[in-house]
């Protein structure tokens, strides 16, 4: 089997270290640094400064009236986090939303990629069409979702009505939650499909040849040969999706606005509401930092996993 190396950030050029002989002059160590400098400086400017400000805000009361000013509030915002009756529920919902959207996208995306890969005719056309949702602006996805599920004139409500379901998708807590989840799945499954398909096409055919000569069944081939081979790529997809899944709020905000009965109020919706409806930037900063911490931990875990997978091969 060919060497499979994750080119992810964390692994770096192993071969470089092995094959570079002393006799060849390497690029000056400073060269790499100078190449990185402009990008890192810009990045530091647009991220470190705001991040520091958010940390400061999380310990302050932010007054907008009469010119913006901060007033030290000690750990008030942080303690509020633990007395807020709605916060724990928001996080429980966020966890459910995260697992259902990202999990659904990974499973459906992989299945779809395998199907496409096995499709003999029309694969490129099908792929082109299947990719379309990932180019749609999330705000449009939200508005479109609202349009399609409107109980008076929505196409999907009408179709469900023909099938005998006369409830209101966005009026019931469970169906509303499922609906916003499905909208996210609709938009982002294509990305997973794309990445998984990219991985599949690089599985050497000799491996598969050997497997089918063995008489291994389709499912067993998939499970023991194909899936392990594309596992690292799937992890990349998982990483990309989990970085964004918590952040985006456009779809929920534009369809249910968090309702009914708070059923779709995830942490990101709550954050947006706290910041830009209540203008309570101190508490919003706390919520934001918590979200960042959770995302970082999740991403870190996947990166570690990626490292191990990448190195194991």
């Amino acid at each position, binding site marked *: 089997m060919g060497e499979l190396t994750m080119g992810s950030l964390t692994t770096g050029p192993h071969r470089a270290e092995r094959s570079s002989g002393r006799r060849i002059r390497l690029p000056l160590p400073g060269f790499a640094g100078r190449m990185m400098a402009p990008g890192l400086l810009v990045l530091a400017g647009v991220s470190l400064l705001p991040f520091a400000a958010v940390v400061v805000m999380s310990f302050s009361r932010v007054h907008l009236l009469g010119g913006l000013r901060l007033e030290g509030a000690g750990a008030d915002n942080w303690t509020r986090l633990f007395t807020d009756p709605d916060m724990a529920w928001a996080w429980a919902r966020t966890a459910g939303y995260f697992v259902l959207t990202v999990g659904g996208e990974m499973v459906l995306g992989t299945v779809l990629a395998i199907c496409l890969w096995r499709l003999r005719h029309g694969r490129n056309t099908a792929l082109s069409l299947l990719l379309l949702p990932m180019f749609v602006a999330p705000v449009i996805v939200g508005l479109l979702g609202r349009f399609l599920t409107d109980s008076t004139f929505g196409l999907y409500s009408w179709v469900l009505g023909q099938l005998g379901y006369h409830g209101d998708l*966005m009026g019931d807590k469970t169906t509303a939650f499922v609906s916003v989840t499905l909208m996210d799945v609709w938009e982002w499954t294509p990305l997973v499909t794309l990445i998984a398909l990219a991985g599949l096409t690089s599985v050497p055919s000799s491996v598969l040849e050997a497997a089918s000569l063995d008489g291994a069944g389709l499912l067993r081939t998939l499970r023991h040969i194909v899936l392990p081979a594309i596992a690292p790529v799937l992890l990349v997809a998982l990483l990309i999706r989990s970085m964004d899944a918590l952040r985006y709020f456009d779809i929920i905000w534009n369809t249910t606005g968090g309702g009914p009965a708070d059923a779709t109020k995830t942490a990101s919706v709550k954050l947006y509401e706290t910041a830009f409806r209540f203008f309570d930037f101190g508490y919003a900063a706390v919520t934001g930092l918590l979200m960042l911490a959770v995302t970082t931990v999740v991403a870190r875990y996947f990166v570690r996993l990626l490292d191990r997978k990448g190195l194991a091969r």
Partner: protein
Amino acid sequence: MGSPPPSSAPRPSPPLSRRSVLRGAAAGGAMGLLAGCGGRSDAAFHPDAGPWRRYAGTTVNFISENTAPTAAIAADLRPFTELTGIRVNIVTLELSALAQKVALDLASGNGEYDVVYADPYQVLAPYAPAFADLREFTEDPGLPRLPGGLDDFIGTHLDAAGRFGGDGKVLALPYDCPTMVWQYRADLFKRYRDRMADDLGFDPMPSDNTTWEQYYAIARWFNDETDEVRYGTGHQAKQHDALMCDFSNLLWSYGGDYFDGGRRVGRIGTLDPGPCRLDSDAAIAGAEFYQRLLKIADPGSRTWDWDGLGAAFRAGRIAMCPNWHEYAASNKAAMPGKVGYARLLKGPVRSAGMYGGTGIAVSKVIPERRRRAAWLFVNWATTPKTQLANLASKVGGGTPTRTSVYAMPRVTAAQHRPSKMANMLSADAVKKTWRSDTIGLRPKIPMWAECDTAVYTQLSGMLAGDASPESAMRAATSRIDRIVARGG
């Protein structure tokens, strides 16, 4: 494979790479240079020109919710530009986006927007000190007179949309005035009047004495007895501002209110409203009735804000609903001659219809002369002439906020069919609602947006069956008390 490396002229490495780094840095730095041009200049000033023309050549930025009068004004700004030589940029946004932009603009002292559509609850109350007192312009001899003076504005509008706190300042001029009224299918009511009267034991035709209990009975009758509509009543009960508006009508009619002295808190506004009173018996009774009403309403209600409700009504799903009177224009387009309008119903204590009007204000974050140029626009946009033109406009309409406009013969005539000004068909109902004892005014306090969210979130839970009316009202009360204690 890439092209082979250029083999000629091997040179020592550093110079080229240094240049490349410089080039990279320049790409980043260019943006810093381009940035130098922020900040807006003061208005042009021509002291010798007439009062309307002194600020010719200025550009005024107006940020507004995308409402009917703004649509009408945006569609035809020529009269103003010809009158004053001032150009107007209109930025229209959805209300929460508007509140966000205005808050940041005022707080940071950026001063991008000269004229602000100042929603009384989300903009005026929290940022009152950031708006100019308009009396300084009305009293300035160097500026054109305000036609009809401040007294020409409907009294409740001027207080609710224009003032905050008891200091007499006028911070905004009433600009629009959506008000909740009872909208019903007059054609169906007419056809079934006798049958309904027989079945229900009262005359169903809307009058000032019809009660919410009777409304409930009528809604049930439509559910059970006719196939022409799917349900008798529909509501705007999505977890959204709309739900608070819809519920408040009931709350007030049952004698409940958000705070002690609620009518004053609503009309003038205050920084400290005191303890929340949503846990009173009257408020809970209102909530109980609202829950009962929603049980027989179109189940789609829980997904509708005012817009979804309006669309459902126009599609013929429901026989009646409480909704903003400005939907009269689209109702007329969809089902001409079939819709009637009446004041909202009476509860055990009174009748109340939610007022959702807004004024336009002049920012104080901008330079002095610019404020005066902005005032010219505020003055012009609310003149009787402009309001009349808006009424007749093809792109929307809007409803006058001045007494004198309602007295114009053309306007009086338009209150009856056939009408060229569709919104005037609801004029009778809204004029009755705007009286100081029937107008429904939510608390005008700086922290309203958060209290509002607490109210509609708890109500949404109640409608979903998570909580009883009593526990929903108590939960809302404790949340509001906490929000108010934290301060704006």
